[in-house]
């Protein structure tokens, strides 16, 4: 952890901007779960350019952790969204969502894959409009 004291100690040599940048990068290494969604922290255009050009390959353990964190967050969010609905609708939405997340039925598994395919088509359409748009991560993800 980079602390303020460390900053004071090294203030002769590093600027606050550099420290903040290091801190942000450290956060990256620690918090792999959010890796893909925090690319905005790359102020440096070149770094960002390189980063968005590949799909993040994580270990099985990290994938599991990341999936669990996402699931918990979305579960909480869905509960909040549907809490005021009548019981019948609430149950139906919940069951459909759970089915999708867990891939319990054929339909859910199919939608899960079409969801990826839709992302790939969108990426491809973005690339048609802007030839610099990186489609590689979507190919890797679909793969």
């Amino acid at each position, binding site marked *: 952890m980079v602390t303020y004291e460390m900053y004071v100690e090294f203030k002769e040599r590093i600027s606050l901007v550099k420290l903040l940048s290091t801190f942000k990068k450290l956060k990256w290494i620690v918090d792999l779960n959010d890796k893909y969604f925090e690319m905005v922290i790359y102020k440096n255009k070149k770094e960002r350019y390189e980063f968005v050009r590949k799909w993040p390959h994580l270990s099985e353990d990290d994938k599991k952790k990341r999936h669990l964190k996402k699931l918990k967050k979305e579960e909480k969010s869905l509960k909040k969204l549907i809490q005021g*609905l009548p019981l*019948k*609708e609430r149950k139906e939405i919940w069951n459909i969502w759970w089915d999708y997340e867990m891939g319990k039925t054929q339909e859910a598994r199919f939608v899960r894959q079409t969801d990826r395919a*839709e992302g790939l*088509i*969108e990426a*491809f*359409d973005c690339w048609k409009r802007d030839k610099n748009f990186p489609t590689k991560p979507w190919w890797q993800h679909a793969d």
Partner: protein
Amino acid sequence: MSKLLSFFSEVGKLKRIARKGWVLRGIKEPETIAEHTFRAAILAWFLGEKKKGLNIEKLLKIALIHDICEVYAGDTTPYDSILPKDKKKLKELMKTWPRFSDAEKKKIAEAKRKKEEAALDKLINNLPKDLKQEIKNLWLDYEKGLTPEGRFFKQADRIENFLQALEYWKKHKGLPQKPWWLQVRELIDEPVLIEFIEEINKKFHKNIKPRV
């Protein structure tokens, strides 16, 4: 498969086409056609469950395809034939719900239907025959109100628009509500949807006391 892919790419453009009614009213970053479709589908599904005998799968399919022709036909508003170039006049016009004679209404609706049908035919032209037929039938059902599902969705679609109008009214004070109230009064007769309008009214006007 390559024809399906081209179709998906074309339909995907709806994610980026802003709804014209909001553009005319100067709403910044207004909803797109795809965004409207998404909520109209959910709204129709839930409210449709409250009406006995509706085929929800068909209702959802109608919802999903009802505006796809707008990829080529563009979004049409009831004001299109009388739009003034002058900004002040446009602002005034947007405070009203345009009134036309029955003959004019018929003519405008016919022109819109023809334009949209041609656009739809172009869009689905390369799809497999059975899919093409299904989409066309669902769209005609929505346009002409051929089945209970088509008629229900036509009104549910207006309700989504009404809800969006009140949300923008709340966010951007100054957006006139009157045209939407006049529109729903004129077009909605489905009991479930009338009940829902009352709910919307309660939510947005709970602090407004009736004038005595």
